[in-house]
């Protein structure tokens, strides 16, 4: 990680992370990966419909940051949020049931893939308006500030969001009012089919934050240990009253933007280059080489995750449809407020 502006420099490395935590990080990334791989299958069988955005390749970001949060912290995510939801503690069952439109889903089947919500884990969505979540995060942090609570609101968004006015308005508010927001930018170099160099006059995104006098850091988003160390340090600083922090994670999505995307705009060699830095493979190889894990341990981990995925698939398949009579429920908090 390199810090810009007034962020402290730390040199994270595999050695500084306890083995137990590294194993947990590997297992969490694998859960996200295997879950999403199954989603692809379920999409081809039309059990999942609509837009499906996968974070395959980007697992180190959501998993690494989530480790730094406490249960009472808040999370605001985007439409590419399966991994964030799982890593935050939403069950695979509730997430997959949501993706299949079941009432047992974490949003009762109303939201689908892009709108996972969960009050229990303070997971405030799944927002499908690019940059739409940033002002919400500022407000959540404002509420904590006004209530004297020492909590962090982690807000995830992509490189594309940085071009939106809402990004800049939210950054300024958070910095101006010194609010406890951890801005987590997952820079995967593309906003749909438009590469960063076509959308930003300044492609070093951490400089944007610096221009708001916000502590800003960037980190290798393919290295979960680096992400988790940086996120921990940043979250601790935010919690301690250090004001908002900006963490840019440089990452890459291995698959297309959504299931509709023919991926005409990226070059195969570029994708292969990034695939060779797969965050899961990297950590697994490292842990086996260090003797923290054996191949048999990895197999056991895989098989436990496969069971968890299978269980979620069965759960979602056996789920129920919300009655059509409930269509107007929750438009307002009082029944009958709809029209």
């Amino acid at each position, binding site marked *: 990680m390199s810090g810009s502006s007034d962020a402290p420099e730390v040199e994270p490395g595999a050695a500084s992370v306890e083995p137990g935590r590294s194993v947990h990080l590997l297992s969490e990334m694998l859960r996200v990966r295997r879950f999403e791989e199954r989603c692809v299958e379920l999409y081809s069988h039309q059990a999942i*419909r609509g*837009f499906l955005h996968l974070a395959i390749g980007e697992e180190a970001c959501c998993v690494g940051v989530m480790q730094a949060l406490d249960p009472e912290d808040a999370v605001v995510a985007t439409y590419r949020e399966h991994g964030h939801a799982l890593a935050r503690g939403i069950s695979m069952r509730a997430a997959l049931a949501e993706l299949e439109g079941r009432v047992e889903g974490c949003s009762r089947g109303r939201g689908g893939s892009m709108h996972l919500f969960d009050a229990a884990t303070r997971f405030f969505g799944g927002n499908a308006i690019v940059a739409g979540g940033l002002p919400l995060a500022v407000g959540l942090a404002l509420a904590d500030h006004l209530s004297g609570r020492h909590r962090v609101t982690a807000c995830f968004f992509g490189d594309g969001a940085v071009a939106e006015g809402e990004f800049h308005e939210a950054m300024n508010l958070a910095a101006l009012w010194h609010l406890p927001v951890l801005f987590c930018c997952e820079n995967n170099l593309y906003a749909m089919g438009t590469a960063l160099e076509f959308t930003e006059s300044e492609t070093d995104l951490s400089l944007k934050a610096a221009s708001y006098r916000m502590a800003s850091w960037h980190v290798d988003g393919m290295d979960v240990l680096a992400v988790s160390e940086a996120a921990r340090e940043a979250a601790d600083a935010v919690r301690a009253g250090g004001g908002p922090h900006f963490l840019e994670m440089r990452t890459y999505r291995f698959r297309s933007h959504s299931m509709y995307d023919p991926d005409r705009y990226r070059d195969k060699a570029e994708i292969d280059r990034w695939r060779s830095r797969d965050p899961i493979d990297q950590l697994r190889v490292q842990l086996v080489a260090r003797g923290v894990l054996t191949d048999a341990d990895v197999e056991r981990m895989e098989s436990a995750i496969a069971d968890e995925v299978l269980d979620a698939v069965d759960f979602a398949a056996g789920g129920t449809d919300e009655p059509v009579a409930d269509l107007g429920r929750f438009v307002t908090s009082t029944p009958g407020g709809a*029209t």
Partner: protein
Amino acid sequence: MSTITYREALREAIREALIADERVFVMGEDVGHYGGSYAVTLGLLEEFGPERIRDTPLSESGFVGAGIGAALGGMRPIVEVMTVNFSLLALDQIMNNAASLLYMSGGQFNVPLVIRMATGAGRQVAAQHSHSLEGWYAHIPGLRVLAPATLDDARAMLAPALDDPDPVLIFEHAMLYGTEGELTDDAHTRDITSAAIRRRGEDVTIVAYGGTLRVALGAAEVLAREGVDAEVVDLRSLRPLDTSTILTAVSRTHRAVVVDEGWRSGSLSAEVASRITEGVFYDLDAPVARVCGAEVPMPYAKHLEDAAMPQVADVVAAVHALGA
């Protein structure tokens, strides 16, 4: 004769405009390298280059506003906004600038701009990608609002829209892009002011537009099998409304059903129903009926989304309830 899809018809119209007038250019998110989020602009970057097929950053207010400025500066921009829900980020520019500049400036500054966007539900993309907000835009004086529901109109409406000295919004229902068929002579009409009679009938007038035209025509088929002869009016232009075509039809059939995917309260359907009541009240044999989208943010689950959208059976039932 070869067939064409709705998206290809739109693309042909855009190509023709780019070739015909060097002031025309296209700008919006993913119109270039990606090929258009609904593939309408696919191939145009290769043909016309990045100056005229401009990929924009995600900044709806910025690039729509820039489109307004470019129009003021003498260009003829075609601005694509991916989906009507995202146009809300640009609503300020559309309403406070595009729609108002001519009037505010005492007639000095007109805005010859075309903004295209997708609208509507049916693809299970839930509550932030599925709404039918064209009725809101039809509320705004200073705008012309079009809803091509047919292949011909997809092909025809752009050229006269670009010729309009004032801002024109074109709403393309997301479920229409893949529809396929043949163009007719109407594909070259310059008419963007009239409603069209899509089916002649004597017993009831069904008024629809955009994505609900198919629903209205489907209902008319079902009704025809029952011996009820429905006239179907396609609004085509949502602002200004072609009131006289609507009133002529209703005064002949004496019954009317307005179909609108938008929410009922304060809606375009309410406007059409009011005009019918104001204009031909004494010709009516029954109150004007409406079939609208359920007043909910759109749910993801298929069965709920279907329940939230006007369906053929709903229109048939509404016609039955009028005693037709």
